[in-house]
């Protein structure tokens, strides 16, 4: 078995949203290259607790890459150096023995730090509440294929629906823009007949909420799509621009 690795960790520590944070350096030893990034942090926290110190707070839930809870900015990139994975799917084999790893929280005015690496992403929830739904009566189960949906649209909607709302797009964007997230949610519903009825109202309401939350404007750098763990692409942002502008100029509201 390969011997354990040693890492120097520079971790953002911040007591609460109103206090000032700072980086703290830790050395961690005997880490298996097969351990996940979050397991490495668990080991660190065990050591900190054994010493009676405050453990590093970080968000996590499913640890299967589908819940969107983990939100670590690792060595300058959201979810770390690998492509299309979340931080929980990142493994220590991606880091050289003896490497210094800098771990920061998502940085955005709309995502205030709650503690250490945990940020408040309820801004995303409020955007969804503004229009990321369809208003239908839930009757009995409809027959399969009762509503015809072209395969191509179903695929595009499914691709957009892959968004887990982790906020990596906001974290990666130099403008802290939430356009990729909002565009994925708007696209997912606008592409399907069930979402069509409310598409104009939805685009207006969700963009309005996005602006109110204090996210920046999109300058088409593409950083969001490059860092998205679910591979949401920029055609969604173009679709959101279309949806919003059509709703504004051609809609009744």
């Amino acid at each position, binding site marked *: 078995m390969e011997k354990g690795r040693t890492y120097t960790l*520079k971790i953002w520590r911040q007591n609460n949203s109103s206090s000032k*944070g700072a*980086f703290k350096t830790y050395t961690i030893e005997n880490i298996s290259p097969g351990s996940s990034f979050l397991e490495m942090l668990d080991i660190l926290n065990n050591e900190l607790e054994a010493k009676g110190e405050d453990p590093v707070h970080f968000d996590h839930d499913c640890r299967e890459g589908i819940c969107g809870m983990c939100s670590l*900015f690792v*060595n*300058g*990139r959201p979810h770390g150096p690998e492509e299309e994975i979340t931080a929980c799917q990142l493994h220590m084999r991606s880091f050289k023995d003896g490497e210094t790893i*800098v771990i*920061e929280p998502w*940085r*955005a*005015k*709309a*995502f*205030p730090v709650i503690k250490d690496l945990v940020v408040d992403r309820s801004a995303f929830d409020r955007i969804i509440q503004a229009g990321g739904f369809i208003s239908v009566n839930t009757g009995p189960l409809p027959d399969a294929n009762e509503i015809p949906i072209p395969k191509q649209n179903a695929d595009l909607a499914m691709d957009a629906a892959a968004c887990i709302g982790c906020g990596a797009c906001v974290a*990666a964007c*130099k*403008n*802290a*823009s939430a356009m990729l997230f909002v565009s994925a949610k708007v696209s997912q519903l606008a592409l399907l007949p069930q979402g069509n009825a409310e598409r104009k109202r939805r685009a207006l309401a969700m*963009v*309005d909420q*996005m*602006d109110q939350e*204090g*996210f*920046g*404007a*999109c*300058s*088409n*750098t*593409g*950083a969001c799509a*490059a*860092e998205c763990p679910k591979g949401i692409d*920029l*055609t969604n*942002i*173009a*679709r*959101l*621009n*279309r*949806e*919003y*502008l059509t709703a*504004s*100029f051609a809609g009744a*509201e």
Partner: protein
Amino acid sequence: MSWVKKTLSSTIGRKLLVSLTGIFLIIFLVVHLIGNLQLFKDDGGYAFNAYAKFMTTNTLIVLASYVLYLTIIAHVVISAALTLFNRKARGGENYMVTKSSSNSPWTSRNMGVLGTIVLIFIVIHLSNFWYHMKFGETPMVKYEKTMSGDIAIAQNFAVESFSKDLLKQDMVYKDLYKMVAEAFKQEWLVILYILAMAGLAFHLAHGFQSAFQTLGINHKKYTPFIEKLGLAFSVIVPALFASMPIIFYFKG
């Protein structure tokens, strides 16, 4: 709030204005380039001076030029305001480490810097030529038809000082061509123009295709073409503009 105001003050609405003004400026570049290519005609500057006269006296063109000034100001002001707004969206702390080179092109992240280079250039460029053409005194030139039917500079026309009355004479022009030729004998100015055109090239490399994305135009059939056209445009147009000071410098 009226829907117009609401739309145009949203982040997408403000980007729409940046995109539309940008596309207008791209079209202007084409017009400006075609006009300036008259500099390369070997006719003592007749074609260029006649073109310059048309551009500064034709009512429609003069009206269009006011739209152009407004467009430039709008593009700059809205972009600058958006840049400040976007900076604030990051919040109080910034990242200690960022690897943005791994996820986005350099040009896309530096449109503000590149745009500022172009803006400074525009101010210098206008004070070099436009101001003198419009308000200042310029050298004057008279052309005549030669025996062979070509147009050449009339030798018997010598003016000591600038005179508006003389301009009313047939074939007498403000000699902007001579001003251009004189200006581009200065090494520093030639270098400045080349650097500014490099700035413009990088600004266009991102701006051209970004303008279409902002309009919501991203299509499997057209976007690859738009991207290639944008890249070709951002290389060819600034290169042709930059060739003017270079050629005049080595001719002069």
